[in-house]
């Protein structure tokens, strides 16, 4: 995979928690500039501000919607339960890249800003994580 060096994209970061999850969850950088085909690292931080261990699970969203298909996460902290002990704070990395095919898609020609949003929920046993978008 080769970087497409002349297509600079600004990636911005949002963080949300579901109302019932008492975690302090935020991105550690407001933005990062990447090019398609170049792997990139970004960090979020989460703190369990309660006095009990809490298990959270997160999902993510990408806007613009059409750019989401080119957003490839190699590894991150989503879709699996993450347990934080009382008052524990951890770094949460996201290692990703934007597919070089992004640069070939005429619909993406004017896209130079992609926003990545993560939302944490409290994981309750047996609950299926609701995925946004069209359900199959």
């Amino acid at each position, binding site marked *: 995979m080769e970087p497409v060096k002349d297509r600079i994209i600004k990636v911005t970061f949002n963080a949300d928690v579901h109302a019932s999850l008492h975690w302090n969850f935020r991105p550690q950088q407001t933005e990062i500039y990447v090019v398609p085909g170049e792997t990139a690292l970004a960090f979020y931080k989460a703190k369990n501000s309660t006095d009990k261990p809490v298990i959270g699970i997160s999902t993510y969203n990408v806007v613009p*919607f059409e750019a989401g298909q080119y957003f490839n*996460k190699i590894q991150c902290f989503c879709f699996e339960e993450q347990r934080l002990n009382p008052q524990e704070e951890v770094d949460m990395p996201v290692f990703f890249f934007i597919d070089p095919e992004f640069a070939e898609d005429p619909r993406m020609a004017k896209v130079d800003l992609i926003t990545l949003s993560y939302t944490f929920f409290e994981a309750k046993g047996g609950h299926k994580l609701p*995925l946004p978008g069209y359900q199959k």
Partner: protein
Amino acid sequence: MSTAMTFGTKSFTPRPPDKGAFPLDHFGECKGFKEKFMKCLRENSFENALCRQESKEYLECRMERQLMAKEPLEKLGFKDLIDEKSEAEHNKL
């Protein structure tokens, strides 16, 4: 139902990461490398291309502490940094 999605376009469904989730770094073993990377970003207007050495070191830290599955760095997009390094070492000889 006819929508913007019905004409064979690739649609976006959130999907799990290729290599699964990072285990949490509960003891902050790689925090120093993270700080180094974040400092690099702040000093370079958040341009990822200028901080790839630092991001590589963070991931190497995780791999050394079983906080990430070991993987050849060339496969994680760091081939150019590896080639540069071995070229420099070769020139030293």
